[in-house]
């Protein structure tokens, strides 16, 4: 039980924060609850022996993406007027129950093997997590890596074009 305590804390807090994102009326509170969820998911990554990913999660998600959300929420000045839920909520609940039932069935019916023992390589020097990720990312996954950079460039250009508006800067 004492070994599972960190998982229970990080996982439970991540779930609670996720629920808070959905149920808060004010968009800023939702964004702040999402920050808590990102931090606790980073804790889960550390428990799973992925410290580099935990750092990336904190830097990219909590540091960059969340700030972008906060900027937009403050820019748009959205207040919690009117009903919080949209019109098709009954249908949405039916759909969600179906999806949850399907996922629960799959998890219950699956057979999970216990953790495999690590295969020791006596000839190869053991690399750390970050070194291993770098090695695999720049050799085996080099092409997807380059494609990801193109995706980011397109996102950059697209965001500028879409958010610029009509009467803004000079019409090129």
């Amino acid at each position, binding site marked *: 039980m004492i070994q599972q305590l960190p998982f229970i804390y990080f996982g439970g807090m991540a779930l609670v924060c996720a629920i808070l*994102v959905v149920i808060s009326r004010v968009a800023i509170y939702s964004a702040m609850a999402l920050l808590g969820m990102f931090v606790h998911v980073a804790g889960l990554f550390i428990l799973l022996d992925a410290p580099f990913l935990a750092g990336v999660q904190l830097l990219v998600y909590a540091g960059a993406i969340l700030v972008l959300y906060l900027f937009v929420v403050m820019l748009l000045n959205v207040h919690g007027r009117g009903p919080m839920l949209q019109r098709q909520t009954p249908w949405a609940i039916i759909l969600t129950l179906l999806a949850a039932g399907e996922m629960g069935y799959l998890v219950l019916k699956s057979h999970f093997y216990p953790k495999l023992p690590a295969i020791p390589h006596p000839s190869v020097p053991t690399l750390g997590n970050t070194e291993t990720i770098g090695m695999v990312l720049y050799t085996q996954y080099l092409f997807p890596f380059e494609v990801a950079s193109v995706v980011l460039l397109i996102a950059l250009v697209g965001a500028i074009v879409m958010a610029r508006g009509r009467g803004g800067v000079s019409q090129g």
Partner: protein
Amino acid sequence: MVPLSWYVTLSALMFVTGLVGVLIRRNIVVVLLCIEIMLNAVNINFVAFSDYLHLIDGQIFVFFVITVAAAEVAIGLGIIISLFRLKESVNMDDYNLLKL
């Protein structure tokens, strides 16, 4: 030792939470936040399986998921800002331009 099924169950619960948010919330910014919850739930699955099978590929995929999430947020927020200019609202029910 935490069993793998616990991670998968947590991931499924978080994914369903995000799905509920996407389907029922009216505020379009909160809908985008809920998509981030779903992406994070998938990332937990990737990293958990990567740890239990001793394969690093799952962690590489998380990188690509984070990249795509960043691109999606940039484009999505750009769309939200131009929709807000057009309709003066962040309410999903007001966006009916494509409706016949």
